[in-house]
């Protein structure tokens, strides 16, 4: 399990009738490996024009003049539109909460007069080619009445702070206390030990390697605006587009092509995709916008800038008695659609107790607005942060109580399921204790504890850190409704259709952007129908093919989309059996699906290939049973029951600190994960490794900073340090499997777990290495400067 060596790809189908559990080769690979993928910038339409944006160069203030005269005169420029020219509705995300808890803010597609961050779009320029459009953007003249910028949460919350939005007092967009156990102060007062952690994480960019982009064109024949855009949420883009343009949704078709990653940045609606579509309508020409990297780093959605002031009470044996957390998330200039600026603080508040039995819990979560690029969900959403805080609390308690850091976790993790926590969430079965024990055993068996001691004698500084965590995957409508969203994601729809030759098309409202849905959904449906996986094709990313869907985020695709596809396949299977029994002239209960045919249970030699049944269903309807409609199409929706399902994992990290440079080197990375039934083990491991790499990136490297005027300091990859193969270690992955009873396939989501566990594990390992210094770090990224300063404080 330690390498990516080719996995067993033999289908178990022949043996036991299922493709689930085999590392079937990816359906996506042949085209992506040969340069035949179709990404948004690969699309070219006749008469296509190119768009870019005039963007604010100041973080706060009022535009006193937006002069596009020279822009419009620039050779090659076709048009330039300001907010007034396009007159579009705003993008607004709303939570149904009292004004004291949530303030809705409108994000105009193009800023009207007020600007709130450097990079905010003011005008869209359209030209004949992508070079001329840059000339046109440069020719724009904008004058500002600059105002003082609010660039940190502290500044935002200060008494005399300027207001980023006039309707948001204290620059606070959300201020909610979801839980406050009665008598919690008495618990703290009476507790044997109370530990306190103030932790923070820096602003990050989810950083899909493909930047955002769109090609929009009006189609006269379909009377539709065709919007090809790289989005994780095609239907949400359609809904917002229709609202902003004041049109029926029927007249907007959103198509998502191959996507070069998203990681959350593309699961909200971007103002640029709306503006480009509006420009295409206005000009009656196709318009393409491809975000450049500078804009992607400074003006796209960011995430993760959070700070925690957290206390935990423990008894003398190290059992946690209470948790009290004050969470402040710096969400930047606007609420994102559909989640709103509440996304980060509400996620943290709802889930923070995690894998631990916490009897009393009080939390206050705030979203503050600042003059920085707005935030969107990023892989893991707050969980990398609150897990880091929980793990820091347990590490600190273990030190103060003289307990082994793994032992204190053992005493506190949930071991009986279902378990309803103090956060009113019911956890389905997982392997919290088992993963912790196995992970520790692996570290011990490899001799790292001894090695650490031996090398310490030689002056080398090693540290070992753990992180035990869970992750709710596949949030149901109920879960999002609890957050008081007025647009409530949760369910998804799927259609499974057999064509007259026996081939299968599956549709899903989820949206692959690297997760291998084309492969795993085919495995799921092929297993249900007993058909060769090669005959099943998934279609996603077209709002005309699925009536509605919620796209891909929050590890929801296999749990929700996969379950909908399973149910639809079952319905189609039932119809195949019904027709098959009729044609075989046997009892309905005497047939089964097997290897691409309906066969008789009592005589396996009597069978009808699906192609023959499909032929009857479409071309010989006269032969169908009297009660059966022609065609072979089945649909289903799925919305998880209860509180959804929780995947879990324990990570262990061994680091070495290098005095002189302060560099943190990861010597060993182990992951023991449980995502229920693995549809495709190799793909699961890929999600784990990639997630861990992004978690390490957040732990050690990535940081979007601003100067005191709100000018972003990271406009290129020179300033924003994305780790390479030289920094990211190999990861050894071990699987535990607790089949999920809440999803059709038994699978839990796996897209985000790696990212969630890595920051805490790395931070704990660094702190373990720093133990002789007495210094404990509580902020990410852990920079070499911080480590070096700590090492210099060695006694």
């Amino acid at each position, binding site marked *: 399990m330690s390498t990516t060596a080719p996995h067993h790809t033999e289908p178990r189908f022949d043996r036991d009738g299922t493709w689930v559990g085999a590392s079937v080769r990816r359906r996506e690979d042949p085209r992506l*490996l040969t340069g035949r993928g179709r990404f948004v910038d690969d699309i070219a339409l006749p008469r296509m024009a190119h768009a870019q944006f005039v963007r604010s160069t100041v973080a706060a203030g009022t535009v006193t003049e937006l002069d596009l005269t020279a822009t419009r005169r620039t050779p090659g420029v076709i048009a330039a539109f300001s907010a007034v020219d396009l007159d579009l509705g705003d993008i607004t995300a709303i939570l149904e909460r009292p004004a004291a808890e949530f303030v809705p803010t409108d994000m105009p597609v193009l800023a009207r007069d007020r600007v709130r961050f450097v990079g905010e779009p003011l005008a869209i320029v359209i030209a004949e080619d992508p070079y001329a459009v840059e000339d046109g953007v440069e020719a724009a003249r904008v004058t500002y009445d600059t105002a003082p910028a609010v660039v940190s949460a502290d500044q935002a919350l200060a008494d005399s702070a300027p207001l980023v939005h006039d309707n948001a007092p204290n620059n606070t967009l959300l201020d909610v206390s979801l839980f406050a156990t009665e008598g919690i102060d008495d618990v703290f007062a009476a507790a044997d030990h109370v530990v306190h952690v103030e932790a923070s994480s820096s602003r990050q960019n989810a950083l899909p390697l493909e930047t955002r982009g769109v090609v929009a064109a009006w189609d006269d024949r379909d009377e539709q605006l065709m919007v090809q855009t790289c989005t994780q949420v095609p239907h949400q883009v359609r809904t917002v587009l229709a609202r902003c343009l004041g049109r029926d949704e029927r007249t907007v078709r959103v198509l998502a092509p191959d996507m070069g990653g998203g990681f959350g940045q593309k699961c909200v609606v971007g103002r640029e995709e709306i503006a480009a579509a509006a420009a295409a309508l206005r000009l009656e020409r196709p318009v393409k916008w491809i975000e450049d990297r500078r804009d992607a780093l400074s003006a796209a959605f960011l995430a993760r800038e959070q700070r925690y002031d957290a206390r935990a009470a423990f008894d003398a044996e190290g059992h946690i008695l209470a948790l009290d957390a004050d969470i402040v998330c710096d969400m930047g200039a606007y609420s994102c659609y559909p989640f709103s600026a509440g996304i980060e603080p509400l996620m943290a508040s709802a889930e923070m107790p995690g894998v631990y039995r916490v009897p009393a819990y009080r939390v206050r979560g705030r979203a503050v607005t600042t003059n920085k690029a707005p935030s969107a969900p990023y892989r893991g959403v707050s969980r990398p942060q609150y897990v880091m805080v929980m793990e820091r609390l347990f590490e600190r308690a273990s030190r103060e109580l003289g307990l082994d850091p793994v032992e204190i976790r053992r005493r506190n993790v949930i071991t009986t399921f279902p378990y309803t926590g103090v956060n009113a969430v019911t956890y389905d079965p997982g392997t919290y204790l088992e993963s912790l024990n196995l992970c520790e055993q692996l570290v011990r068996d490899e001799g790292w504890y001894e090695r650490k001691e031996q090398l310490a004698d030689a002056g080398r500084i090693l540290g070992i850190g753990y992180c035990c965590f869970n992750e709710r995957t596949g949030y149901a409508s109920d879960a999002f409704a609890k957050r008081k969203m007025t647009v409530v994601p949760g369910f998804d729809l799927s259609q499974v259709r057999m064509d007259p030759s026996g081939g299968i098309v599956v549709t899903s409202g989820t949206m692959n952007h690297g997760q291998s849905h084309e492969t795993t959904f085919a495995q799921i449906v092929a297993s249900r129908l007993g058909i060769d996986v090669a005959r099943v094709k998934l279609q996603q990313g077209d709002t005309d093919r699925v009536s509605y869907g919620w796209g891909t985020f929050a590890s929801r695709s296999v749990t929700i989309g996969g379950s909908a596809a399973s149910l639809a396949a079952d319905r189609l299977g039932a119809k195949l059996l019904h027709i098959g029994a009729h044609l075989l002239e046997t009892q309905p209960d005497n047939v089964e699906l097997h290897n691409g045919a309906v066969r008789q249970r009592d005589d396996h030699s009597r069978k009808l290939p699906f192609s023959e049944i499909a032929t009857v269903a479409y071309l010989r309807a006269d032969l169908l049973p009297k009660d059966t409609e022609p065609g072979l199409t089945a649909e289903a929706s799925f919305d998880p029951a209860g509180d959804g399902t929780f995947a879990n994992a324990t990570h262990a990290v061994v680091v070495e600190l290098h005095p002189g440079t302060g560099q943190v080197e990861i010597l060993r990375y182990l992951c023991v994960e449980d995502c229920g039934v693995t549809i495709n083990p190799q793909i699961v491991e890929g999600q784990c490794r990639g997630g861990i790499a992004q978690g390490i990136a957040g732990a050690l490297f990535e940081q979007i900073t601003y100067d005191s005027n709100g000018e972003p300091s990271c406009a290129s990859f020179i300033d924003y340090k994305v780790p390479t193969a030289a920094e990211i270690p190999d990861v050894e992955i071990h699987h535990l499997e607790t089949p999920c009873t809440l999803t059709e396939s038994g699978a839990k989501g796996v897209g985000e777990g790696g990212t969630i566990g890595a920051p805490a594990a790395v931070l704990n390992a660094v702190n373990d290495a720093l133990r002789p210094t007495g210094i404990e770090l509580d902020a990410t990224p852990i920079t070499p400067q911080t480590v070096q300063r700590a090492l210099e404080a060695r006694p």
Partner: protein
Amino acid sequence: MSEQHLITLTVNGHDHELLVAARRTLVDAIRHDLRLTGTHVGCEHGVCGACTILVDGAPARACLMFAVQAEGRDIRTVESLGSPEAPNDLQRAFSEHHALQCGFCTPGFLMLAEGFLTEHPHATKSEIRAAVSANLCRCTGYQPIVEAVDDCARKRRCAPGPAAAPSATQAADTTTPAGPARAAADPGHGQPDTPRSP
């Protein structure tokens, strides 16, 4: 408007006459004039490597060259490798090791690796890792890419042909790739090929 230049680009063995502005980048000419869209653009400042192609056999960033600079050079893009029906050995290794997820960086890594392995057929796994660190991937965590390239290199060395006769030193390198610093810290179960970060 800037002056137009009539140039001939030799891409994947074919000559193409193009009229381009002086400022047109090579990657734009390849993608949008020749419609070879397998080469991708990730940063336009030479860091991410998504646009990596081979110029006279060596990996180069197509976003950092102007099309007019590429006249007379032998340019190879991902489209010169195998087809979906008949991928080449490196493409097969990428698929077998799950060395791609979204696939956006993949053509760049493939061309980087093709160029590197041609120059260094006996590269050790840690040398491959160092070479692969020239490009960014946001999905895989790099391990599968390193292992795919290493796997392909090993198989190429085993295949009949001039590359199949490594020197004794090089052969030893491939089986014991541990660097001295790493070997000291590793108790024997870790991944000995991970180099220290610079």
